[in-house]
């Protein structure tokens, strides 16, 4: 490939040399381990199983079935005559037929409980772009967005990297199932102010990644009241809205706004994408839906940097305007995800592991805190390493999601076959058994370490008279090797 390049001192921008892209976090180290030794049912049955990737692969057959029976609609049209029109279409408004289809799909996902206007839909190449774009519009460099923890690790890059905007966490605790409280909101706001940062908005993910749970109506109302009081924005990333196991358990901010007759709605913006609900991350289909006219206009102009391929808009316009297909898809997809969720939660329970009670998403939020050697980030990373190296599972540690309590892990279940999931559960079960049995000896030496006594210290402390005690300690320390 290339020759070694010596960088001139006046080389690249600060953005380019910063680490804010976040790729040096443990979040990615796990993927590397997987990349080097990927599981395969036949060819590599002892490889690393990828459970760190929130992909939805459970309903592809439904999409393929649709394509097979609707070839003309989804190809370039009769006799390829649609090709030219398609290839030339670069209007940043986006294909109207596609926007209409997206609006209608978003309505269906919400069971018709909210209406969406195609004229407010701005298209971007993925939710990644949508979130960054909104941040550019709502905040200046140095300003803060409040984001509840734990949150999607990609936000560190998407919201901060090129925008120069800061994330100030709204701390959520396991004690109340990580729900956002008014106190936590106020506290985050005050903390930002104390650091002289201007707070521009709150960004929530509903259903939550990594919790796999929807935000309750009452909490949404409180958040909306909070942002109104502070005169700041609210961005609701609803990328998992179609992955709620029971449709009546999801309340979108859109419904709340409608119920309030859109009073104060110009501060609200929704981000959506087809990457999770339809399992099409490769197609780069994201959208910003804003109730603020100026944001819509500006976002539309900015979308020039990240338009959706007209080829893809054309394909999806036809697919998503087929209401019979989308109704069926949404329903079946929900059921399959629910089934998977139940499977993994039961399997984990049998292995002695509890999860947060979830009702959405492509993952569960697993609690390994009782099994940590120490209730710290280090303790969490230690068990995470074991997961990767011994159990050969790539899962995501809570610390990469900025979770305040140690020991939580996000475990994805929808990016593999049921058989692979069973293999993963079996491995976990065996690991937990081993760990429980080996735990006793381990505890003693851990205790000694935690108290930072060296062998020398112990000898000095107990002197000659404790020869027996000393020899006991020595033998237990050497056993733990």
């Amino acid at each position, binding site marked *: 490939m290339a020759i070694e390049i010596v960088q001139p001192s006046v080389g690249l921008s600060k953005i380019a040399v910063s680490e804010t892209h976040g790729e040096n976090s443990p979040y990615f180290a796990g993927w590397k381990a997987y990349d080097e030794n990927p599981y395969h049912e036949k060819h590599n049955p002892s490889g690393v199983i990828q459970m760190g990737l929130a992909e939805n692969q459970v309903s592809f057959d439904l999409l393929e079935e649709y394509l*097979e029976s609707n070839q003309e609609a989804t190809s370039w049209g009769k006799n390829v005559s649609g090709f030219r029109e*398609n290839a030339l279409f*670069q209007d940043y408004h986006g294909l109207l037929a596609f926007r209409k289809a997206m609006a209608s799909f978003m309505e269906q996902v919400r069971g018709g409980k909210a209406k969406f206007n195609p004229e407010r839909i701005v298209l971007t190449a*993925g939710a990644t772009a949508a979130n960054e774009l909104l941040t550019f519009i709502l905040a200046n460099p140095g300003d803060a967005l409040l984001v509840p923890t734990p949150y999607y690790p990609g936000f560190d890059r998407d919201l901060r990297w090129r925008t120069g905007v800061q994330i100030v966490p709204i701390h959520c605790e396991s004690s109340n199932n990580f729900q956002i409280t008014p106190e936590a909101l106020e506290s985050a706001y005050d903390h930002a102010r104390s650091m002289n940062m201007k707070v521009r908005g709150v960004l929530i993910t509903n259903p939550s990644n990594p919790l796999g749970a929807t935000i309750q109506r009452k909490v949404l109302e409180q958040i909306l009241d909070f942002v109104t009081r502070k005169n700041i924005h609210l961005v609701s990333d609803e990328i998992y809205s179609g992955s709620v196991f029971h449709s009546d358990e999801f309340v979108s901010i859109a419904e709340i706004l409608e119920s309030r007759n859109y009073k104060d709605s110009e501060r609200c913006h929704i981000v959506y994408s087809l990457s999770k609900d339809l399992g099409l991350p490769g*197609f780069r289909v994201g959208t910003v839906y804003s*109730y603020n006219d100026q944001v819509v206009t500006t976002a539309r*102009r900015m979308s020039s940097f990240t338009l959706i*391929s007209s080829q*893809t808009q054309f394909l999806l316009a036809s697919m998503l305007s087929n209401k019979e297909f989308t109704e069926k898809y949404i329903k079946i997809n929900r059921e399959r995800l629910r089934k998977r969720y139940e499977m993994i939660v039961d399997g984990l329970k049998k292995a002695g592991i509890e999860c947060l009670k979830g009702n959405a998403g492509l993952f569960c939020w697993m609690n390994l805190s009782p099994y940590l050697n120490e209730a710290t980030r280090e303790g969490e990373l230690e068990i995470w390493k074991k997961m990767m190296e011994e159990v050969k599972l790539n899962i995501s540690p809570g610390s990469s999601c900025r979770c305040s309590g140690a020991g939580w892990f996000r475990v994805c279940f929808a990016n593999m076959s049921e058989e692979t999931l069973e293999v993963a559960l079996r491995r976990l079960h065996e690991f937990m058994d081993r760990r429980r049995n080996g735990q006793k000896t381990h505890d003693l030496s851990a205790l000694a370490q935690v108290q930072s006594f060296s062998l020398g210290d112990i000898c000095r402390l107990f002197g000659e008279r404790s020869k027996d005690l000393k020899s006991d300690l020595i033998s237990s320390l050497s056993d733990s090797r």
Partner: protein
Amino acid sequence: MVILRENQALLSKIATSDQHGENSPYFDGWKAYDQDPFHLTENPNGVIQMGLAENQLSLDLIEKWVAKHPKSSICTKDGISQFKEIANFQDYHGLYEFRKAIAKFMGKVRGNRVAFDPDRIVMGGGATGASESLMFCLADPGDGFLVPTPYYPAFGRDLRWRTRVQLLPIICNSSNDFKITKEALESAYENAIASNIKVKGLIITNPSNPLGTTMDKETLKTLMRFINEKNIHIVCDEIYAATIFNTPEFVSISEVLQEMEHDPMSLINPGLVHIIYSLSKDMGLPGFRVGILYSYNDNVVSSARKMSSFGLISSQTQYFLASILSDEEFVEGFLSESSKRLAKRHKTFTQGLEKEGITCLASNAGLFVWMDLHRLLKKPTFDEEMDLWRLIISDVKLNVSPGSSFQCVEPGWFRVCFANMDDQTAEIALKRIHAFVVKKGRRNERAPMNNKRSKSFQKNLRLSFSSRLYDETNMMSPRVMSPHSPFPRSPLVQAKT
């Protein structure tokens, strides 16, 4: 829906600034077109869009290929077996087959005089996204990039809006056919330094938009030596590389780098060289958003690749292009035929204009001509240029782009696109120009609001102002935003959606 109150204070400085550029006259012409678009049968008196640099002359070749290769689409019976894998593929490295095909294509376009490494190919949301990302990689807010005038109007948005980089013009004049001189280059650089602006690089478009000319090897070498001497970057937007239809042959910065790299006297640092590319012009596929960033700097490749997450190319499109561009026979045939068709259209156009006494800058590439109407101006001012432009839109019913929107320092130049229409429309455009020129030879009977009489010019061209010039629909206040997108739509596309 309730009309929501705007709250200016709530949005960022970037959001409330004007740097998106849409209030420039560049877009007013499109608005006029949007309201009255020409259509051969349905609206034969409408405005003909000649402000849109699209290549529509050879799409039929691609259509034929598509019809014969159903496997290239993951939606057909033949291609569907790939659907799941492709739809799931979001790796920001991009499909290997796609990168390989693009690298090969880029090499072919340069007559295989250079080879491109697929691992240096980084995706962007069109050249628009790719060039913005490159600025984010190379410059900090407030830093400056030198750019020769006249230049593509959207650079103002693409390179400056969110990056907050400054553009530092290198003034070029018609006296030497708008070529970059060393003096102009040095002068622009010195001015920036004197104003305390950190110059991070130079960006050139080669072949040039709007000039349609290519840079000779000596000029490129001069630029390379300059940037190395100053230790700044050079970004070459080669988006029109395959629109060359005449000699001199295209010389890419990659060829110059290759030549100079091994010259011990040159001391060239490849880490300063970056190319922007796209398939929007060469292949006529602007809708597919295929932006390419190619850098000889490993750190830039790495950084830009991470940034490409904000503008990846749809995997469906990557797959299709990997397929068509690996068909070497098709590619060779396409490049050759496309070039011929562009040559023919260019000739028809320039000859047609010459008959009316209108000259254009001699050009060998691009999808447009750089038309010289400075003799039609009563005074060499930009106000006169704008008046003339509005007249062309209202009387000749052609949307052309005034030189001022390209930051040209000399009034009277216009960019006129010729490749975004069929032969009949091109004929009609020429006929209209002819009619306009002839009419101006006669006295205008309607009492103009402004009783101006034209001076005589060469070949009896006379200019008079019709009252329609002051028609409100054409005199749009820059603050008024059109409900329609100022974004281009081809006159051939009945965009009913």
